[in-house]
């Protein structure tokens, strides 16, 4: 079997840990005739890895990412910050799955420097870009700000470093691209369903007023220009629904 074959699961699920087995042995192409091939319990629910540990980041990388996401989304009167919301843990868990390894992307060479209209043409995966980019961030901080790692800097100093990365005004050439990747992933973490480890207690949704994983607004379609009255809802429900939370 060609090694490039990917199993259905790996194509279908971006959300869980990457399966190490490429394809179930003996799996056959499905043939369906005579009836709808409906099977109970056949669905593929989201399968995010549990939190409480770091999967990809080293301790220093984790502290760095936590410091970064807390400047991108700082805590203030509007909401908690990116760190408390779990954005760093979200990113770590995303990097541990098919997203982090670019498993689903076209990764055959030759790799050539492309035009901006041709999109990202590097061979590095998101997990690889974080490893390299975070090292560059701390190297830049230590070299320019008194030997301190990024997470040891004062908030205003951290903002300055991030602004320089965003503008590509540092020695590290991929700085702006790396910054964009981190910013995109941080926003994903703050606004994705909390089942993926960020958006703690739906803080991101409460912040802007998004009601979450609701699926029936028929009673409100013509309630023009009126505030929507219901609180947000996650795929996992609401915290107060869980036993023992009352």
């Amino acid at each position, binding site marked *: *079997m*060609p090694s*490039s*074959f*990917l*199993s*259905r699961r790996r*194509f279908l699920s*971006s*959300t869980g840990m990457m399966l190490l087995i490429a394809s179930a042995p003996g799996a056959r*192409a*499905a043939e*369906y*005739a*005579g*009836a*709808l*091939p409906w*099977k109970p319990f*056949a*669905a*593929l*629910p*989201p399968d995010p890895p549990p939190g409480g540990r770091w999967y990809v980041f080293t301790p220093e990388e984790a502290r760095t990412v936590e410091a970064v996401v807390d400047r991108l*989304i*700082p805590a*203030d009167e*509007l909401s908690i910050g990116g760190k408390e919301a779990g954005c760093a843990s979200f990113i770590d868990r995303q990097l541990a799955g098919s*997203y982090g390894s*670019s498993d*689903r*992307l*076209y*990764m*055959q060479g030759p790799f*050539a420097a*492309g035009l901006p*209209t*041709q*999109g990202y043409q590097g061979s590095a995966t998101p997990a690889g870009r974080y490893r390299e980019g975070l090292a560059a961030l701390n190297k830049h901080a230590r070299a320019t700000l008194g030997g301190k790692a990024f997470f040891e800097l004062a908030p205003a100093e951290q*903002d300055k470093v*991030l602004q320089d990365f*965003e503008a590509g005004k540092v020695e590290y050439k991929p700085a702006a691209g790396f910054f964009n990747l981190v*910013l995109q992933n941080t926003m994903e973490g703050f*606004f*994705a369903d909390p089942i*993926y480890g960020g958006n703690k207690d739906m803080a991101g*949704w409460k*912040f802007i*007023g*998004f009601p979450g994983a609701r*699926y029936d*607004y028929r009673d*409100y*379609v*013509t309630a023009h*220009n009126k*505030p*929507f009255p219901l609180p947000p809802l996650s*795929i996992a429900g609401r915290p107060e629904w869980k036993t023992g939370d009352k």
Partner: protein
Amino acid sequence: MARKLPRKDVVIVGLGWTGSILAHELTDAGLDVVAIERGPWRDTATDFNLAYAPDELRYAVRKDLFLQPAQEAMTMRNNVSQTALPMRDYGSFLPGTGVGGAGTHWNGHTWRFFPSDFVLKTHLTERYGAERISDLQIQDWGVTYDEMESAFDRFEYLCGISGKAGNLNGAIQQGGNPFEGPRKRDYPLPPMQMTYAPTLFAEAARSKGLHPFPTPSANLSGPYVNPLGIAMGQCTACGFCERFGCANYSKSSAHTTVLPVLMRKSNFEARTECEVLKINLSADGKTATGVTYVDVNGEAFEQPADLVLLNAYGLFNVRLMLLSGIGKPYDPSSGEGVVGRNYCYQTNAGTQVFFEGKHMNPFIAAGALGQTVDDYNGDAFDHGPLDFVGGAGLNCIPTNGRPIQYRPVPPGTPRWGAAWKKATKQYYNNTLTFSSQGSSYATRGNYLDLDPTYKDRFGRPLLRVTFDFPDNDVRMSNWISDRMQEIANALGGKQSVVAKLRKGWNSVPYQSTHNTGGAIMGTDPKTSAVNRHLQSWDVPNVFVIGASAFPQNAGKNPTGPVGALAFWAADAIRNHYLKNPGKLVEA
């Protein structure tokens, strides 16, 4: 060596919208049909589960239901002077895969093109002179709107489209689209109830003398039982439509309108996770003998069949023809050849109007819930004093408020930090968006062929897309943006921002999955790959069905005409081809 399987009457490549319709029609005609689909089996109950369907990260951002580039990518460049490189992730457009195809995760805007669109070259030449379109490669379809009317009607009734007729047998109807072609009867369901933003947009458009109407929607305004006896439910406006499967049996797709009946037929079989490598031809190249495909284990099979129907996404229909040697490949330097010719896209621009103190509630939404203005679409208006042809529909169809991807802020707002937070909170519920969806007209230099460098996982060359927005289309879009500014001014608000399209099509930001052409229909085998019945001129037992057949694209979503073409081709096969297999049109 490929294992040879028992012969079938018909092999269908791709079980999406058109594959399902053709399979249904031809099994009704008594034929033994097998559909080969490279993606997985999917259905509502198991794959679009209500409990976890509203998951923006999984479906909209990580794109779980879409074709993954690892399975098949394509290369792109803006013109022949550039070297095409692979789109390593899909961005500008997102092809589907699996049973239901791209019809699984569409929004549901269901249009008929204007009568003039089908005879565009003749119409524009008569009205403005041949010189006016001399830098474009505009062609007639070879079929007229009147011939297609019943096919449009059948697709709309299959789907339960919710809308308001604007032209019933020539009589203009108040509240519908006055520019549409005459229809024999109204839509099967009334329009959806309007949310706030489209209501404001319609008021503003009306104040400018325009004619807004409810967008014809495949998100159903009420319960419906279609002509096959399949029941659907009312759309709940959940705002998880495009990029998602509908968990509520409320969005028309092959799953909700055809498959429950098709799958029970003893003369139909679906083989999923099987990828067709090529269409096999006889030694003289004039007859297809079947297809060769590879299953999920990498085992190759040969499926012989009397009739081969290409029902993949349009771009992949074209690639399979090129890989199989069906039809002469198009050469932009000579303008000769037909396969890959007249690749077109869509020419879009957006508008944002920022308010204060409103409750837009953008999350109360559906893929096709909104209002459209067609006064500036196609040739609905006089282009005499203008320097372009074509036009755009103006659509206020706020499809969602999903916050990873929808967080409008005025230009100049920082992308992060405290100031970003303040603006994001202020404008999430205070922004009205609408956009122009413009026509895309063919030029000699925009085309599809096989890439010389990059290969897929089977070692076959990837499709190469060479495309940029034609100068005509850029002028059109910018003129349309000025019209959008007028509506934005009428809407008021604190600030409005109207985008202006520029040359240099960028494959990264999402724009539209409306890729058309490459295997276009027509009346001349020198300038079309298939005849007016979608039959290959060169291999008459191959029909190629999809948006690949459009000679150029209109300022409207293509699924309505694609569905109608499926019925149109099915009629040709049932009523003519089966009685006398061979060329339906002599060149």
